[in-house]
């Protein structure tokens, strides 16, 4: 398979077919937490794209050049990856505050929240050490750095897309008349269920 089509498959597989929020249930806390209005969900999506790309690069490099060669990856990868992500996010926050106030205002408050967002850890783990999601992509047991980054980009854009769609739906739901017991979170779950029903339609595309 040519490189381009492999990249396209990784991207589409990450963004739509294996959408991390609606078909894998990863990162649901921000999905229900910040989807109250459009603006915050856009800031959150931007921050997730940014952090995920950096986290995947870092974990890929550490796995490839430190953990795997030393043979300690199997039992050290969980603490190693979460520490890398946590400290990376902290540094990015400090750097952004100094270097780019505009960007910091757009996504600053979301950065600390993202540290304990399972979507970032899941994607970074998958990029460095594939196999958990059963991607069904004929690229062998490990991804190259380029493939890992394309995959991460797909996943994070899929995350943002689902989050923003859901926020748009919830803004409308605020005004809808729903039974009292369903007000707030129960109706949000049911809406998420219907939205995720739409994503079921993508499964099987390109045999993925």
């Amino acid at each position: 398979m040519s490189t381009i089509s492999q990249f396209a498959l990784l991207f589409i597989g990450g963004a739509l077919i294996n959408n991390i929020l609606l078909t894998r249930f990863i990162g649901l806390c921000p999905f229900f937490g910040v989807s109250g209005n459009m603006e915050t969900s856009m800031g959150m999506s931007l921050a997730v794209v940014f952090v995920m790309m950096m986290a995947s690069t870092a974990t890929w490099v550490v796995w490839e050049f430190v953990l795997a060669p030393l043979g300690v990856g199997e039992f050290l990868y969980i603490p190693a990856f979460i520490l890398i992500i946590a400290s990376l996010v902290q540094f990015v926050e400090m750097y952004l505050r100094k270097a780019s106030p505009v960007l910091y205002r757009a996504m600053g408050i979301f950065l600390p929240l993202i540290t304990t967002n399972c979507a970032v850890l899941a994607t970074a783990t998958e990029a460095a050490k594939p196999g958990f999601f059963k991607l069904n992509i004929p690229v062998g047991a490990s991804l190259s750095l380029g493939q890992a980054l394309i995959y991460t980009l797909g996943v994070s854009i899929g995350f943002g897309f689902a989050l923003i769609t859901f926020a748009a739906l919830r803004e409308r739901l605020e005004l809808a008349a729903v039974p009292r017991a369903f007000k707030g979170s129960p109706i949000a779950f049911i809406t998420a269920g219907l939205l995720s029903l739409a994503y079921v339609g993508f499964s099987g595309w390109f045999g993925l």
Partner: protein
Amino acid sequence: MNEWIRTFRQGIGIENPLTVLMIGLCATLAVSTQVQNALFMGLAVVFVVTMSNVLVSVFRNAIPSEVRIPIFIVVIASFVTIVDLVMKAFVPGIYQVLGIWIPLIVVNCMILGRAEAFAYHNKPLLAIADGLGMGIGFWLVMVVLATIRELFGTGAIVWFETTLVRLPAGYAPPSLLLLFPGAFLVFGFMIAGTRWLGERSAARAEARACRR
């Protein structure tokens, strides 16, 4: 002792992490396709939350508050690694199915939340009660969700290839319940149900108080 029991019951009832606080949802929705998976996942979560609560509580005076979050994460990550390796060795079939959900227990907000909100300010014995209560509250809701999904989604409940319960032969199960949307839908109805029950019992208690 009374305080111990009250703390324990809080996690199961009025502060239930799933139906009331709604934290730690990801794992619950994802692994609740089978009762068997939900039981093992719940066991792992109960173990990690209780042990990390105890350790954080024992060392609560030695942990400086500026770096407490990284320390909590490392404590949690170590217990998760234990669970990860033990499950891989003893129940490889379940480990295969749970997959990424085992390492992701590290970032389950419920566990970090308990370390931060409870264990860091309380004595070890109470921290055990809190960990067990929260863990078991999480476990119960997950198992109920999994029972509904497995029973009505496949028509039977299976435990390691032995069928425990089977619905009448004429029942044709809808695959929707087993697919991803089913989890959201069933859970939405479950929260609405618990909320309705809670409101009803509150109203009754109020009526009883008025009569007196």
